[in-house]
């Protein structure tokens, strides 16, 4: 661990103790991978957009789509309405494309992938290799020992490194690959759906993403198919001064079901890095999509240096009747979070749910929430948002519930709670509610509380130290959201909650 060198160690102190201390409260995923990278020149221009498109081997329609977005973007203003304070971003001082050199010739399978890359993912606890072996067994019923399978698409800086379990998924008719591959192999699906939920003109960051997105994941679940395993993408930003702009497109055709997980980490750097992703989900008649995120980008150091600036547009379109979508997010990382996973409830009787925990510590700032746009009749939505602030962090819930004139008999229930740890942090709730018909109902509840001294003392009298006690209390506070996560993620998220609050009390 590099961190040890940062600590002043008195003589005679046990090394193990030092390591334990060094690892405590530090960002676990802060190391970087030394790997030869290939960069596009710094800055953004039409040439860079063309270069990215060319690197990905894209057809002309895609290049044109990007260029259109770029031309739009140069006319747009960065939004300033969020409750976020950060130095102006110089968009010309960024790399927009970085890929490991070894990926120049696209590997045909995971076997051809640079071992260093695979090692990176292994270190992150993502068993790509093991699954690759399993996936490599032609026709075998490849179940790992623990009986649960999760297919993984791993994105390293700008490119997808590899996708596991492809063959087995293909048997079920499920397409799970990188978006660059989908553009080449499944252009009819991409052309039909890309930008249909988040149009390239949507907002400053989404438009930027439309111009320069380098890779991301693509999922198509055919009609009537329940995806045989959970799908997940792990995003890793490694290169310095590089923005990551991934694009995810998920299509759940009629009567299908998929659960999708997204995890994110980045090395510690003392300069901020930009991340502007777009996720689009199309849900057709009777289909259901669960999308869970554990966002653990580097949050910057205790003094607020560095960290990821996370400007993300995520939206699901319940395009047809009885479509269902559920967003669950655990946000512990990033210096700046600007993110509002939304549901467009277009189909009659469609449903949207949003469960969120946003934890901010030190100098982190989060402005996050959701939008529930009720367009169809009898549509339902539910929002449960928990914000936890410690240190000098600022945490804002910003949510829109909109009931259109035709969305008769629709319902929304919103509950947002904030928990403050310490007295230098802040929590804010900004709900926007628009109801344009008489038969719909919107309920909103909001609470703000502090970690109670009586609760703390009670836990400590029973033997827990202060940090353990805070972790227990905070986990209890966050439980409604943690429960909505798939099993493995719930465990991971629970320990993340504890990690990101370490050192925040006392």
């Amino acid at each position, binding site marked *: 661990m590099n961190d040890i060198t940062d600590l002043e160690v008195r003589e005679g102190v046990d090394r193990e103790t030092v390591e334990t201390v060094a690892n405590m409260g530090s960002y676990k995923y802060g190391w970087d991978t030394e790997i030869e990278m290939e960069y596009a020149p710094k800055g953004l221009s039409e040439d860079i957009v063309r270069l990215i498109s060319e690197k990905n081997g894209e057809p002309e329609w895609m290049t044109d789509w990007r260029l259109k977005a770029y031309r739009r973007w140069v006319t747009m203003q960065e939004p300033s309405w969020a409750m976020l304070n950060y130095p102006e971003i110089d968009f010309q001082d960024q790399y927009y494309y970085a890929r490991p050199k070894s990926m120049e010739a696209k590997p045909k399978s995971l076997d051809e992938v640079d071992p260093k890359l695979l090692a990176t993912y292994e270190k992150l606890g993502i068993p790509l290799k093991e699954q690759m072996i399993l996936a490599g067994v032609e026709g075998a019923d490849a179940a790992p020992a623990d009986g649960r399978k999760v297919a993984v698409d791993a994105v390293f800086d700008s490119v997808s490194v590899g996708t596991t379990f492809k063959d087995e998924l293909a048997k079920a008719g499920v397409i799970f690959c990188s978006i660059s591959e989908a553009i080449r192999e499944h252009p009819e699906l991409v052309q039909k759906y890309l930008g249909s939920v988040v149009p390239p003109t949507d907002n400053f960051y989404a438009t930027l993403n439309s111009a320069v997105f380098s890779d991301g994941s693509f999922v198509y679940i055919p009609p009537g198919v329940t995806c045989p395993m959970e799908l997940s993408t792990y995003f890793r930003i490694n290169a310095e001064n590089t923005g990551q702009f991934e694009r995810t497109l998920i299509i759940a055709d009629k009567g299908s079901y998929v659960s999708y997980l997204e995890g994110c980490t980045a090395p510690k750097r003392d300069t901020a890095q930009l991340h502007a992703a777009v996720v689009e989900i199309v849900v057709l008649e009777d289909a259901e999509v669960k999308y869970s995120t554990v966002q653990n980008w580097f949050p910057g150091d205790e003094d607020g240096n560095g960290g990821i600036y996370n400007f993300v547009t995520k939206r699901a379109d319940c395009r047809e009747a009885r479509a269902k979508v559920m967003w669950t997010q655990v946000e512990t990382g990033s210096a700046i979070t600007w993110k509002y996973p939304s549901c467009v409830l277009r189909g009659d009787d469609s449903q949207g749910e949003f469960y969120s925990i946003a934890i901010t510590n030190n100098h982190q700032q989060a402005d996050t929430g959701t939008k529930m746009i009720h367009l169809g009749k009898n549509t339902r939505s539910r929002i449960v948002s928990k914000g936890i602030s410690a240190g000098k962090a600022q945490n804002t819930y910003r949510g829109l519930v909109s009931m259109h004139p035709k969305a008769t008999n629709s319902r929304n229930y919103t509950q947002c709670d904030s928990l403050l740890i310490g007295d230098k942090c802040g929590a804010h709730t900004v709900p926007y509610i628009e109801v344009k018909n008489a038969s719909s109902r919107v309920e909103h509840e909001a609470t703000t509380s502090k970690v109670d001294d009586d609760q703390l003392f009670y836990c400590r009298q029973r*033997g827990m130290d202060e940090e353990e006690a805070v972790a227990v209390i905070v986990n209890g506070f966050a439980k409604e959201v943690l429960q909505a996560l798939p099993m493995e993620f719930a465990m991971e998220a629970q320990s993340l909650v504890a990690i990101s609050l370490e050192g925040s009390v006392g």
Partner: protein
Amino acid sequence: MLKINNLHAKLEDEDKQILKGVSLEVPAGEVHAIMGPNGSGKSTTSYVLSGRDGYEVTDGSATLYGEDLLEMEPEERAAAGLFLAFQYPVEIPGVGNMTFLRTALNAQRKRRGEEELSAAEFLKLIREKGKALNIDADMLKRPVNVGFSGGEKKRNEILQMAVLEPKMCILDETDSGLDVDAMRLVADGVNALRAPDRAFLVITHYQRLLDHIRPDVVHIMSDGKIVKTGGPELALEVEQNGYADLLSEVA
């Protein structure tokens, strides 16, 4: 086991002295009661001993097996064997009673350098202890004290005591808010935990709890001091004549 000597304490934020020289000693295996009128400093004694914030010790000492309690953090006192049954047990929403107790037990064991209990071992332990106290599985799964009746909360305190197996148990007005049946159930639980290597300090305003938990020694507290110490008959005297008589006698 527990030695308190000339303990003086005041509120941290105010210049108000509450304990003005408390001295008492509880040997292992004994049950002592502290009785006294409201505002005499009974509960403050329990808070100062367990290390609650908001109090400042200005003089005197308190030791458990010779170890200075006042120097320790609350969790260190717990691991050393000090347990406080709260007058108002605290609710912790979203945290299962079992999870809470397992986290606490393992935190104590870790601090003492003992092996932590696995989920299975803990389950066995808590089922066994719960049964003895008439605590059903449902109560174990519910969030800590949330929606518990007064009696359930106090029984839960005794369950925690049974699982954590402390040396020195302080019961702060455990009888408050309990009906006769609930009080008997709690008292039975405490009596079952009496042991040669364990001591109890039972803080109460009324004598009635002491009908069920027979003390060896009764201390009367008034205005921040122990003013009289005697056998169980002292509690009966209070019951019959009230505090006023007794205090005027002392004065």
